């Protein structure tokens, strides 16, 4: 570090104290050239840092040309010493050069290393990223695997030597909180740190950072090169490297080391970065826990703690926490006294946080989490100028478009995709992924002529602003797939409602993003566990069950999905009965929809215990007390619905159904309540009344017994119920009623409704069978399980929304056949039928 040598400014990446010191040192040194640790490829784009539109946090992004998923980031924030040095130099028109090992080599080395320990299971791609950060300051932490033990965390060692158990705190006390003494030598801190690092390097060598000798050799060569050209040279690099860069070595030795390094072709650009991604929480290698706090320390002109507390108070007030100026004063006092007690030179983040918790947040961690998220980490989003080179995502997209022969055209056009074809499936995936990323190039429309699940129709239109969206989406990743994965994971965390997360899971399947699925599922399971509203859960269930089935069709591993779906079904089942209590008419109607949806979804799950328990729950519901004036009960609509669903599933025989109906129509029940019961019971098909005269008789008897004053009240309900019936059914029911008490029910099997003979004509019935077979596809060998409605044989006339099963019910064929099967019930039926005639 002598005058004729280059000035080596050892720093800690992302340290505001380091940044300040670097600025002071550069002002004192007035160098002719500034050398910064970073990939030399970035020399070409460094000028952009001076651009007006450039706003940190940003990152240098280097990626392999042939494979954009191989990428490394060098993030810098406003308080990063590197950024300070770059800006300082550019403002004074001093050239800036990056001197680290070229990314071309780092990538190639990482690839080779990855190849080497393929079996070891180390994530090679990430290793390249972490290497790129220059892990000197905080390395060691992120490589928890095999290599971790040999790596040295220099700051940790120094902190331990100084008697600190926390490396971060030692660094804060020793470096970040140092108040630069006015007029002193701005280089003094660097000399001290260099000495300390020198001692460390003597003891630990390269500390297990494998590529360090190579990188340092390259840096030395670049420094020598600069020294030949310029007089005063300043080098900003990780403090760890300083001793190695100061060492005297021969040019030939350094050249020798770098000889024959593998290389790949790389491109480099600036991308916007966020404070959140600088933070450790996001799992990125940059590894600072509190970028927002550092930013504050760097930008606050004076009294950092007092200013910080004021910021915190402002945030809490925005969120409606009553925080007064007195609180701020007390927090500052507490933080400063705590610092004295802990023997620290200045109150740090720990003291500030303790004080905020105790004074402003009433000891609670809940508002504190907000402070941590919004201020300590922070929401800052960087910007890069438009002139920055294209992000790799754009390239990846262009390449995929070419490969799939899918040109971006401004003209709107429709695209039919047959997902059974390889290319079309890939196209569909691409479009789904882009939609997840907010790049709405294609919009899915309803197919013209096909309802098959293997067809998709898209309307494509490439708008110019989509290019901007692509650039924005570049933050999420370097390929369409990885960006969509990251975005999906993020959206899952941010999604406000449970149903949105389930929809997202479905989209992840459509877009084939298996890596995003575990994260989405996790969020889904957590949300489901905490959501107390059964409605939300029931809404989420159908999409999820669809996803499970869809995943099966696509051969995706959907075990996790199925587990979540089953868990959700259990929660709905447990939560439903209490949720049905004490609802008003609108609430009950809403709940009926949930009940239907959840019932259908549960039916599609292939888990018998779950189905059995679901049926048990329905039975309980059907037998519940109706609502009274004093106690909240279950609305008739829901009880009737539960009875109907059970009946449709053959879990309730008609006798029991008749008993329940009789109960619902007992004289004590309010007419409106009974009408609601009918609505629930008969919704989605009235064939039941045609086939079972006993039920019809009960309805009829009740209806005629409704007192005139109440009749006007129940009329709308009844009208709604019966208007939903098919016209044929309505007519039949009407005819049956008009026929009135005509057929005196005889004892035995002789009783037959009008239009039916006493004994079925087997020959005529058999004549229908071939047609029926044809309709059901029983002989053709087609897969009857393809359609969910058709597959569940018990779903006779049941499912809302009229699937194939419904249509068949109204076919004149099956009723006739069913009339046969119902013969079995006839004997008992005739007994209860008697009173009907009397009442009339």
């Amino acid at each position, binding site marked *: 570090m002598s005058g004729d040598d280059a000035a080596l400014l050892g720093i800690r990446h992302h340290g505001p104290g380091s940044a300040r010191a670097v600025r002071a040192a550069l002002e004192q040194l007035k160098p002719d050239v500034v050398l910064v640790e970073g990939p030399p490829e970035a020399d070409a784009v460094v000028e952009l840092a001076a651009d007006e539109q450039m706003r940190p946090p940003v990152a240098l992004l280097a990626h392999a040309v042939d494979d954009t998923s191989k990428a490394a980031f060098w993030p810098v924030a406003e308080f990063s010493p590197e950024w300070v040095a770059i800006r300082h130099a550019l403002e004074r028109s001093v050239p800036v050069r990056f001197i680290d090992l070229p990314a071309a080599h780092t990538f190639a080395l990482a690839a080779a290393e990855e190849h080497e320990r393929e079996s070891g299971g180390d994530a090679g791609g990430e290793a390249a990223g972490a290497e790129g950060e220059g892990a000197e300051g905080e390395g060691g932490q992120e490589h928890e695997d095999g290599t971790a033990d040999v790596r040295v965390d220099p700051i940790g060692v120094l902190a331990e030597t100084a008697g600190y158990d926390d490396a971060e705190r030692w660094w804060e006390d020793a470096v970040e909180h140092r108040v630069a003494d006015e007029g002193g030598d701005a280089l003094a801190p660097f000399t001290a740190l260099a000495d300390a690092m020198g001692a460390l390097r003597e003891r630990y060598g390269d500390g297990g950072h494998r590529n360090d000798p190579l990188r340092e050799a390259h840096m030395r060569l670049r420094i020598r090169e600069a020294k030949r050209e310029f007089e005063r040279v300043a080098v900003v690099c990780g403090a760890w490297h300083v001793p190695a860069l100061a060492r005297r070595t021969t040019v030939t030795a350094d050249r020798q080391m770098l000889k024959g390094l593998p290389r790949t072709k790389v491109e480099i650009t600036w991308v916007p970065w966020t404070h959140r991604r600088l933070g450790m929480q996001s799992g990125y290698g940059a590894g600072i826990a509190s970028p927002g706090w550092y930013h504050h320390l760097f930008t606050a002109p004076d009294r950092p703690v007092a200013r910080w507390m004021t910021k915190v108070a402002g945030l809490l007030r925005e969120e409606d926490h*009553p925080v*007064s100026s*007195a*609180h701020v004063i*007390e927090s500052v*006092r*507490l933080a400063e*006294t*705590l610092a004295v*007690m*802990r023997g620290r030179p200045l109150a740090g983040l*720990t003291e500030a946080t*303790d*004080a905020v*918790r*105790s*004074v402003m*947040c*009433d*000891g*609670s*961690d809940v508002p504190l989490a907000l402070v941590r998220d919004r201020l300590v980490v922070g929401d800052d989003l960087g910007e890069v100028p438009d002139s920055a080179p294209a992000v790799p995502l754009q390239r990846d997209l262009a390449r995929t478009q070419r490969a799939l022969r899918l040109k971006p055209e401004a003209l709107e056009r429709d695209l039919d995709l047959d997902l059974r074809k390889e290319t079309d499936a890939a196209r569909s995936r691409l479009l789904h992924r882009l939609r997840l990323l907010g790049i709405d190039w294609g919009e899915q429309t309803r197919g013209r002529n096909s309802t098959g699940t293997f067809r998709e129709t898209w309307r494509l239109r490439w708008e110019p602003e989509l290019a901007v969206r692509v650039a924005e989406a570049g933050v999420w990743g370097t390929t369409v797939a990885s960006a969509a994965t990251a975005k999906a994971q993020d959206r899952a965390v941010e999604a406000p409602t449970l149903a949105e997360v389930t929809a997202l899971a479905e989209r992840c399947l459509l877009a084939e993003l298996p890596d995003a699925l575990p994260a989405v599922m996790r969020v889904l*399971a*957590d949300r489901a*566990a*905490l959501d*107390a509203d059964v409605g939300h859960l029931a809404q989420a269930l159908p999409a999820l069950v669809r996803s499970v089935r869809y995943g099966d069709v696509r051969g995706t591993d959907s075990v996790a999905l199925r587990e979540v779906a089953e*868990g959700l079904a*259990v*929660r709905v089942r*447990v*939560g439903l009965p*209490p949720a049905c*209590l004490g609802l008003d008419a609108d609430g009950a109607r809403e709940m009926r929809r949930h009940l239907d949806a959840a019932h259908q979804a549960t039916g599609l799950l292939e888990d018998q215990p779950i189905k059995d328990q679901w049926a048990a729950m329905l039975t309980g519901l059907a037998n519940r007390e109706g609502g009274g004036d004093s106690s909240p009960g279950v609305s008739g609509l829901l009880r009737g619905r539960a009875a109907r669903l059970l009946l449709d599933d053959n879990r309730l025989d008609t006798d029991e159904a008749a008993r329940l109906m009789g109960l619902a129509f007992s004289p004590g029940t309010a007419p409106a309540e009974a009408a609601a019961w009918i609505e629930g019971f008969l919704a989605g098909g009235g064939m039941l009344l045609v086939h079972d005269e006993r039920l019809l008789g009960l309805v009829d008897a009740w209806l005629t017994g409704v007192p005139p004053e109440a009749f006007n009240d129940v009329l709308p309900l009844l009208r709604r119920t019966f208007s939903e019936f098919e016209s044929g059914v309505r007519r039949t029911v009407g005819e049956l009623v008009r026929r009135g008490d005509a057929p005196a029910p005889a004892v035995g099997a002789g009783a037959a409704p009008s239009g039916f003979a006493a004994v079925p004509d087997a020959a005529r019935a058999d004549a229908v069978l071939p047609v029926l077979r044809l309709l059901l596809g029983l002989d053709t060998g087609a897969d009857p399980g393809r359609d969910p409605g058709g597959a569940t044989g018990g779903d006779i006339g049941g499912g809302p929304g009229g699937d194939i099963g419904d249509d068949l019910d109204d076919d004149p064929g099956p009723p006739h056949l069913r009339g046969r099967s119902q013969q079995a019930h006839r004997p008992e039926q005739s007994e209860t039928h008697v009173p009907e005639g009397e009442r009339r």
Partner: protein
Amino acid sequence: MTTTGTVNGSNEALRPHAEDAFAEELKALAAADDRPRPTRWNLSPWAVATYLLGGALPDGTVITPKYVGPRRIIEVAVTTLATDRALLLLGVPGTAKTWVSEHLAAAVSGDSTLLVQGTAGTPEEAIRYGWNYAQLLAHGPSRDALVPSPVMRAMSEGRIARVEELTRIPADVQDSFITILSEKTLPIPELGEETQAVRGFNVIATANDRDRGVNDLSSALRRRFNTVVLPLPATVEEEVDIVSRRVDQIGRSLELPEVPAGADEIRRVVTVFRELRDGVTGDGRTKVKSPSGTLSTAEAISVVTNGLALAAHFGDGVLRPGDVASGILGAVVRDPAADKVVWQEYLETVVRERDGWKDFYRACRETTAGR
């Protein structure tokens, strides 16, 4: 003074005060303590923290830890007292609030007896002052006729006053503290005088933050306190340890027949309580809803004790899942509608799947169905 007798006779006391029980440690600390002490403090803040958290002194005296938990909490508490803000210790039952408060007072003022026990019937006199009516009638209002409260004495002597269960005190009585804490003075309008607090005075209050039916602090009062929440035991091991130790003690004092304390059942109870309380399973993989009950360590202790009594008197003498199931149900399901769903969900999604919990699941299902 009525309290002096017990202080002197501490050797025979059933439960000696902290300052007597740990007199040796306090003396050693005071001798070794060379840091600046706030006025009328017996020890420096650093030494007070060491007294509570434990450590070794240069002269070899070992200070036993009085509080096992995060260091941060004690540091904030001590610092609060040094900044003349009042300290509010919050926590669910069984988190050592009173214990910490007593030791803090003992270490700072050497006196933990200036205590106001908060109850629904605590009168204003207990916080301000009362009158000796015989004196009052005989000689008229004067300082002699005045009976100072512990708080008033602490103010005039510059010591720490303690208030237990602050939130149980009726709201209007609570508000007497506002003047004391903000103006640091206690007016005596009857005499036209006031008692001003001298340096060293401060208040440590404890309150239960999840108890129902308490008088919540007014924001005016709350603003005068720095709040420290004492956490529940950090790990299962710690909590299991606390529960088994207490169950053992209680069992002996209630003279329950010896029952081989089922370590497995205790662990199970603690696990259930922790999971429901934290809203996440022990492995951190599944979230669960939290019921409205507190589910404190103290309740876990009572559930196990109950179970032991059941097993001893009506069972086969071994603590079985069935013995604790109904106790757990009672502790968890406080609100019959909402909590029952929470509990059933927990049973179906967590307990049912767990290895070795079959018996417990069955026992719980039976108990739950019976309700």
